[in-house]
């Protein structure tokens, strides 16, 4: 147990209908780092983040955040889900979405007050969207939606951020803004774990990478780990034999 380590994952396995989605994952994340999680589609990247936050059941394994369980330290964790995971026709304003990041602090049944809205407005300013605070969210562009989510993460004022593809399909200006905010976070001693798709920008954006394809192919400082050989192992070889074995198991179960 190490309370200074933002995230320690031991032997984590998550299965869906007995088929492992991530398998025997071991990760340690050092404080004050930007960590990229890279891997092909279906490699279990989102599942990893969700399992860290107890949003999907673990088949086995342990997750420690600052040396404690997620439940105990959830006020120190900020989550930025995939943009497509929510309904953007929902009848609320940009400011409403950002204040949602404060609901945990406000607590059950208490209303959102002016000071909370002020915090949210400041966060919107930080991501360059203060003039859109009262916009209905369905009128936002993809990049603006992502900035809204980012502002929501900022008001959470967490020490560990988990971000699910914040760079997916955003314009160049938004990408730059996100990178800047990530660097500010790092300067403030915060840690961010970011699922990322665009391989060429990995060395520029991230201090460390986790190469994931069901299991962890490699994990460590970007300059040591982000190599052609490791990438080939990540994107080339799925554990096909393991897939076959679980498939055989399922078939056997059905014919019994």
């Amino acid at each position: 147990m190490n309370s200074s380590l933002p995230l320690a994952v031991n032997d984590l396995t998550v299965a869906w209908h007995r088929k492992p989605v991530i398998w025997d994952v071991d990760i340690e994340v050092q404080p004050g780092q930007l960590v990229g999680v890279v891997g092909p589609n279906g490699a279990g990247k989102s599942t990893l983040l969700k399992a860290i936050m107890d949003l999907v059941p673990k088949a086995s394994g342990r997750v420690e955040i600052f040396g404690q369980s997620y439940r105990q330290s959830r006020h120190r964790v900020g989550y930025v889900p995939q943009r497509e995971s929510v309904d953007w026709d929902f009848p609320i304003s940009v400011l409403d979405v950002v204040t949602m990041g404060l609901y945990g602090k406000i607590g059950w049944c208490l209303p959102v007050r002016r000071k909370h809205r002020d915090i949210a407005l400041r966060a919107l300013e930080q991501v360059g969207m203060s003039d859109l605070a009262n916009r209905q969210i369905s009128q936002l562009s993809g990049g603006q939606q992502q900035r809204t989510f980012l502002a929501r993460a900022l008001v959470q004022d967490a020490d560990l951020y988990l971000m699910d593809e914040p760079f997916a399909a955003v314009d160049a200006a938004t990408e730059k803004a996100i990178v800047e905010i990530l660097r500010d976070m790092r300067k403030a001693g915060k840690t961010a774990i970011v699922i990322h798709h665009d391989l060429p920008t990995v060395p520029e954006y991230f201090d460390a990478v986790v190469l994931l394809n069901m299991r962890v192919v490699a994990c460590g400082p970007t300059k040591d780990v982000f190599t052609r050989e490791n990438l080939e192992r990540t994107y080339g070889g799925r554990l096909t034999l393991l897939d076959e074995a679980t498939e055989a198991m399922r078939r056997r179960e059905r014919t019994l």
Partner: protein
Amino acid sequence: MSGLENWSWAYDGWIVLAGMLCAVAASLPGNFLLLRRMSLLGDAISHAILPGLAVAFFVSESRSSWPMFLGAVIVGILTALFTEWIRNFGDVDEGASMGVVFTTLFAIGLVLIVQAADHVDLDPGCVLYGAIEMTPLDTLNVAGQPIPRVVIVLGAVTLVNLLFVVLFFKELKLSAFDPALATSVGFSARLMHYLLMVIVAVTAVASFETAGNILVVAMFVVPPATAFLLTERLGVMIFCSAIIAMLSAGLGHLSAVFLPHAFGFQSTSTSGMMALCAGMLFFVASLVSPRNGVIVRIVRRQKLALRILSEDLIALLYRMDERARDSAVSPQKLSAVLRSHTWLAAWLMNRHVRTGHVIPSESGYRLTEAGRQLGSVLVRSHRLWEQYLVSEGGVAVDRIHGQAEKLEHFTNRELRDRLDEITAAPATDPHGSRIPSEHK
């Protein structure tokens, strides 16, 4: 016969009040069912509580509210649990698992009630269609006043639902919008889900005597759906849905009493008319919705068509001006080339005269300097697009004009500059026409 002599405040007033309370009580949680895209679960629960009602009735041998509430709430939660369970283990989608659960439970309830109908006082017709007309007959004394039992029950449920929505507004909003975030910050989305289901079940039980088991579904779904069309804010939407619910109830009873008389029939079922009125209000809202109502869409499309035609006129004048400097063009010629009505072209040209883009003369219209600038911007956009489509998209030269004709109206300065950059600042378009340069 107007039917007016059938109206009495002491009688109809209570019916309207009961209808309104029922409608408001159902529409309040209905908003969140709608936003979670599970309106059907309200339907499922309100049907599935039937066996709960029946069993509670057998056990307690009375129609008093408490055992019935309890039975129905238990079955209501079971419905939500079973639905999720079947979806996970049966590997079918939510709609199918809901269909399995609620039809099965409903059938059990129906069998129980029909079996019992001979010797007990629980009438399937009343359960299915409601008996709002009976409201004023069954009263309790409150502070010396006889108040219908149904009104008291529905009033209490409306109050509970209102408190629920107000107290948990923030939690309901978050867990409906982003359940993952809600759960990860400590407001279990699952807990909120089951709380909502309890409220839905309670509301369905309280309403089944009034609106009937089937029509209460209309009140869960239709007022929130109508309100959703009218506003972009959750708080306003909930408020609107309550108003629409009350309107449906009031209009429903009025039209049930008066409308059939206008055609010489007896008055008809109030709960049926309530649902019908709600449906009509939804229809009206879908016409006038400010976001994407039918009328707004027609107006927007017409406005856009007019703007495009008005710009096309200027671009056409510019092209003709290119060929023969300072030539005047008659409105007949303009409308013939653009295939528009002559009067429409003439009207738009008059507007251009007022804004100083063209000057009329005896032989036709002539561009002013401002008009020539506007025209050159349009033509520049058009020809840059043509160049772009050919050089970057590899589109055949004979097929680019139509595309560019549309795109030119949606191209601003920034986009033009980028087109210019990508196509390496061409002097002419693929047809060989000169591309006008940008104004400073």
